[in-house]
């Protein structure tokens, strides 16, 4: 695998992974539910 290919793959995959982690960590941290969602 060429270094450029590896670089593109790692950066691309890392970017979407960071975005997923950011979104879900914010949702979990805020702990906000939908309007009308039942409490456990």
């Amino acid at each position, binding site marked *: *695998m*060429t270094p450029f290919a590896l670089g*593109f793959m790692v950066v691309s995959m890392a970017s979407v992974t960071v975005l997923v982690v*950011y979104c879900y960590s*914010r*949702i979990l941290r805020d702990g906000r539910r*939908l309007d009308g*969602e039942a409490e456990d």
Partner: protein
Amino acid sequence: MTDFQPRERWGTRIGLILAMAGNAVGLGNFLRFPVQAAQNGGGTFMIPYFVSFLVLGIPLMWIEWGIGRYGGRFGHGTVPGMFDALTDGRRRWAKYAGVLGLFMPFVVFIYYTYVVSWMLGFSFFSLTGSYFGLDEVEQMRVFLSSYQSLFDSSVHGGWVALVFFLVTLAFLGWVLSRGISGGIEKLALIGMPILFLFAFLLAARVLTLPAAESTPLAGLNFIWNPEWGSLAEPKVWLAAAGQMFFTLSLGMGTIHTYASYLSERDDITLTGLSTGATNEFAEVVLGGTIAIPAAVVFFGIEGAQDVARGGSFDLGIVAMGVVFQGLPGPELLARLTGFLWFFLLFIAGITSAVAQASPAISFMQEGFRWRRRKAVRALMAAALGIGMLHVIFYSKGFLDEWDYWAGTFGLVIFAAIEIALFSFVFGIDRGWDELHKGADLRIPPIYKPIMKWVTPAFLYTLLIWWGVTEAVPQLLMEGKDPANFGYLWFSRAVLLVVLGIGLVLVREAWRRKEGDRA
């Protein structure tokens, strides 16, 4: 029965996110994306891809969430009513333009469900080992084409594809009749974790394959190796923009319907971004690591290029069918691996199909006050009746014609209309405020001019480009077998009839609504 029913609601936020992600994650994530990347510059394809994600995909997705939630406040679960609400009821044509958001998901639902049923069929064939022994690409092609053709009994009886189509429709009908939170949300809560689990297992299996014609790393290199010259080619940028539509299910009307079941106190900015991110993860990390690298290992670079040129089904069914037979280890394990792949595609497909079915059901519930079960039964009957045309005429190009006009070009036309209504008729300032009601995430202010100018410019460029380079040749049937011209015209005529029925139903729904008000 014409009883009034209160609007349904999503049960949980995670259920909503997974259902929306299920809508977005479909066959295209695992079959179309790696082929597009490999054919359009490898690693450098990701530059236009991410630019498209940022300036086209994400803004348009937020706009669709916003239009959907706004329309839902007025009791509209489908785009005709939403477009009417966006214009404050002052432009009569808006609801008729919105019929595209009803017509396209309905039409796509019919043929997509047929294709998804193939994945169920091949899941079954993997477990039973039906295609094991057909270890040449050409043999697998014959196996697939016999399955696809009602009149080719060389391998399967013509009824086999029909049985799996019926089973898939029955399952979808059962899920849909249980409602938004009891059916669609539960399907997503169960199906999406299974999908990701299967995808991780398959990616791990592919990456640990021993070298055959080539190695897994060479397969990854095939997808990601950059061709710098491709960045200067408009077609690469437009391919990336087009992929955004397919992967995020934009321009369809499905996001609108799902978002209509939200209250204005619910967040749509962070939730919307989360579904987009989940989809991207499934596509870029998992979608790019399974089919093409596996094909490169077994067929070498040139063989994989041939497979990629053959299209998604050659890659996903024919090539992967051969790959599973060549896996080292016991045959039972190879069959199970095949099952994981095809069932993964089946789950990806059905979670998208329930979204495609939802606008039509919601429209009949709200426009004609049908009960959900009645609307679902009518939809399934229509899907079976019209879907039979695909079963019978698949080999004549009937399905491809629908896929192009409703599932490809129509998406861009619809998106072009909705962004003009949102940014210029409803007004970007009002729209911006609407998106931020109940928001957990403040959208960066740069997105306001992007939504008003950059996204529409990108979209209209795509529309013109596709119009000139693809729609006109498609309309003129260039490259098609003249023997099939009659079938293709028939296919278009059926599409136009369905569109016409949609327009009549919208007019009738409004007539009833105005009658109720009077």
